């Protein structure tokens, strides 16, 4: 990977929450890069640390969370390298939304119910915009109109509406438009389609796809929904117990998975196309992040687990060009996957 167009580089990031029961290690030694024109999806179950990771990229972690180690380096439009872990409040305020914006998971409740949509735009511009306040009045209305059109909403109707007058899908699109207001280089979306109906989900996916095709910025998705990653991601990172266990191009991760957890997730999701499939769930439950298992954190649920897995946490290893996985037995996983390759629905249904 060339370093030139990377907009974000995260290295060895560790985040923990202090709780009554002990330290919750939500993010453990995560490293990745994002280029300024690609979309990267983090997939994993609840408690895999993906939301914490997303929040850390705009430094909006809750009070009891702390970044114990690592760096988050952001390259701004003016080629300046910022280490987010060291920024002060004022610098962060200028960074957020102008460089990197986030669309929150609870988008349906994230808008202020007593404020019109227009005022949400004004607020965002005022809080994060230029200090001399160039984005206000006419200029602000024009930019807000443009952003709403980008997400296929009717600005005349939406700008003067209160949140309760809009449907869930429209509110979600307003949240995306707000994210775009200051033209960020990175947009983080936390479960952007969860809790929306299928046809509404489709509308959001199409909006995001168009944005991705027509504008140059990086998107980072956080989702438990594999199909969202299949739709929109250029690269996919599978997360488990606070770390990335597999990272690669979307085709690599879906068609040549090398980590048993990725394989398990793929085997657990039914598709609508094709015949009835054999599906199986991953045995056991996601781990307790306070008392993590020894060695590889997936070993208690893994069909490939051996003594070595119980003792040593595997490092990320290159398994193909541009694809890495953290598994001692990835070669075995690969040959097993290839051996039953024929039964995999998509490859079959599609390449036949």
């Amino acid at each position: 990977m060339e370093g030139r167009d990377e907009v974000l580089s995260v290295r060895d990031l560790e985040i923990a929450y202090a709780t009554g029961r002990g330290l919750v290690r939500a993010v453990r030694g995560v490293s990745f890069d994002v280029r300024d024109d690609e979309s990267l999806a983090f997939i994993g179950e609840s408690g895999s640390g993906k939301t914490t990771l997303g929040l850390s990229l705009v430094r909006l972690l809750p009070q009891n969370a702390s970044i114990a180690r690592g760096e988050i380096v952001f390259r701004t439009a003016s080629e300046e390298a910022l280490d987010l872990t060291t920024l002060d409040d004022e610098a962060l305020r200028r960074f957020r939304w102008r460089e990197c914006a986030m669309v929150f998971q609870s988008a349906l409740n994230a808008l202020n119910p007593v404020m019109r949509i227009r005022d949400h735009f004004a607020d965002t511009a005022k809080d994060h915009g230029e200090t001399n306040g160039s984005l206000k009045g006419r200029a602000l209305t024009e930019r807000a109109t443009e952003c709403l059109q980008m997400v296929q909403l009717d600005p005349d109707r939406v700008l003067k509406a209160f949140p309760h007058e809009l449907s869930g899908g429209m509110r979600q699109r307003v949240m995306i438009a707000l994210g775009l207001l200051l033209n960020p280089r990175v947009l983080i979306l936390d479960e952007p389609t969860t809790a929306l109906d299928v046809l509404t989900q489709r509308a959001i996916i199409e909006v995001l796809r168009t944005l991705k095709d027509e504008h140059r910025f990086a998107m980072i998705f956080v989702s438990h929904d594999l199909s969202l990653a299949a739709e929109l991601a250029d690269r996919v990172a599978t997360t488990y117990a606070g770390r990335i266990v597999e990272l690669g191009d979307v085709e690599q991760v879906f068609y040549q998975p090398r980590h048993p957890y990725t394989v398990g997730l793929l085997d657990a999701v039914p598709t609508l196309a094709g015949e009835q499939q054999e599906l199986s769930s991953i045995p056991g439950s996601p781990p307790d992040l306070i008392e993590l298992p020894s060695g590889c954190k997936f070993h208690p649920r893994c069909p490939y687990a051996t003594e070595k897995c119980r003792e040593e946490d595997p490092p990320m290893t290159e398994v193909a060009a541009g694809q890495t996985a953290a598994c001692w037995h990835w070669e075995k996983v690969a040959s097993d996957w290839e051996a039953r390759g024929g039964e995999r629905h998509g490859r079959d249904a599609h390449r036949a």
Partner: protein
Amino acid sequence: MGGTPIELEHVSRFYGSGNKQVRAVDDVSFTIRPGETLCLVGESGCGKSTTGRMMAGLLEPSEGRVLYGGTEVGSLPEEERKSFRRAVQIIHQDPYASLNPIRSVTQILSAPLQRHKLVKSRTELKTRLRKLLETVGLTPPEDFLKKHPHQLSGGQRQRVSVARALTVNPEVIVADEPVSMVDVSLRIGLLNMLLGLQQDLGVAFLFITHDLAVAKHFSWEGRIGVMYLGRMVELGSTQRLVREPVHPYTRALISALPEADPELTRNKQRLRLRSPDIPSLLNLPTGCPFHPRCPMYEEGLCDTDRPAEDAVSLGGHLAACYVAARELGQEDRIPESSKKARDMRKTA
């Protein structure tokens, strides 16, 4: 297990009154036969849960009747009413809210067994509890009997809910989105366990879900009913409905669903809706409720009369769409008023 069919006959449920009245379920009919699986699919607000609650006897229909073995549930004599209550059990969506937090698993499961006098002695109770837990895959049972809900994961709690439903040997289980709050990696395990109940114990299911792919997996041998704004728009065998959907709403749902396969999902044929937004139940469109969004819409034909549930009827496969009826050579099922309205607007 017994074999009593449950029929819903033109069942409706209204909320509110006057011009604020909402028809949450409007004239829905179907029968659950013994051992059968029927999935109700639809978006939020389509009336699928309300339909399920009416079938379980938790909600009375505003119009229409729910029949148990041919008798209206409301007028069943005391004894038979009790057996209806036992025959139909419900599993709720949220396993965090549906179990009493201060009761242990043993207490949760013993209560219905003792109330309905289904066990005679303590030893019998113990054997039965162990068996129930094994049936729902909570093994070894000793590990779970003394636990309280907060000590269990979402998936395990949902299994306890299933075990509780099984205590009274039900004929039908109404499962209202039983897996939607469970982690992805555990969902299929739960679904497969429920499928096992259907196969091993012959329990019939009314399975309510918003996820067509889950419905397909769960009722491959059964049927799917698609609801939209309180109405059943298509009802037929799963395999046929998934492969050759008749109603444009079903087609839209299938084409919109993202799949966990990059090539498949990115190359899928998309159906363009005329409007992305769902109409309000308070202000329903005339004629077919889907017509403002429908890509097959024909002026006059679609916005005059509401299509009957069986406007298309192909060997038990029903769809409420006049355009599809005409395309499939069932023009005779379109009422004269709609034909007239269409022709008038065509010439105008």
